């Protein structure tokens, strides 16, 4: 499934013109992104939670050359499926 398929779903199920369906799908993901960039958690009930975590620097190794490199401190997004979705997924 790609973004185009999601736009198609909104077009079919909500009956919006395709261009508007596209615009609102973009806006939804953009809003989620901006919220996470601000450091705020997003919780979609029945789906899951996106959280931003800070990671300190650590030493990594290039698996090919075995060369050691510093992995810079960074922010990462972790996703946890809701209990409901997790249970369904486990059985898939």
């Amino acid at each position, binding site marked *: *499934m*790609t*973004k185009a*398929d*999601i736009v198609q*779903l*909104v077009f079919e*199920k*909500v009956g*919006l013109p395709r261009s*508007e*369906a596209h*615009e*609102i*799908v973009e*806006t*939804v*993901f953009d*809003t*989620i*992104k901006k*919220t*996470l*960039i601000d450091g*705020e*958690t*997003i*919780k*979609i*009930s*029945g*789906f*899951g939670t*996106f959280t*931003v975590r800070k990671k300190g620097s650590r030493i990594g190794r290039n698996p090919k050359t075995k060369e050691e490199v510093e992995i810079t401190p*960074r*922010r*990462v*997004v*972790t*996703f946890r*499926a809701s209990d409901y*979705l*997790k249970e*369904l*997924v*486990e*059985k*898939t």
Partner: protein
Amino acid sequence: MTKSMLIEKVTERMDDFTKKQVEAIIDTIFDGMKDAILRGEKIEIRGFGNFRLKQRNAKTARNPKTGEKLQVPPKNALHFKIGKPFHNALNSISRDV
């Protein structure tokens, strides 16, 4: 931020839509994604990230209280991988660097 707050934010940004409409759209998006995941499909949202199923092997676990061993069957887990532009934005890495 919960789903209802997300609905409000998106409604603020979309002039011609009511909160009710935005709610229906957001529900359609996440229900559609859930259905795709349960069909075993990978989801690719450009600029945001990908969702896919990862197989977890069967393992033997132990009840920490009783020390009793038990078999855990293989199962699927949902995995999210952030998209590169989003990761860069999150870490204020400009595209030209």
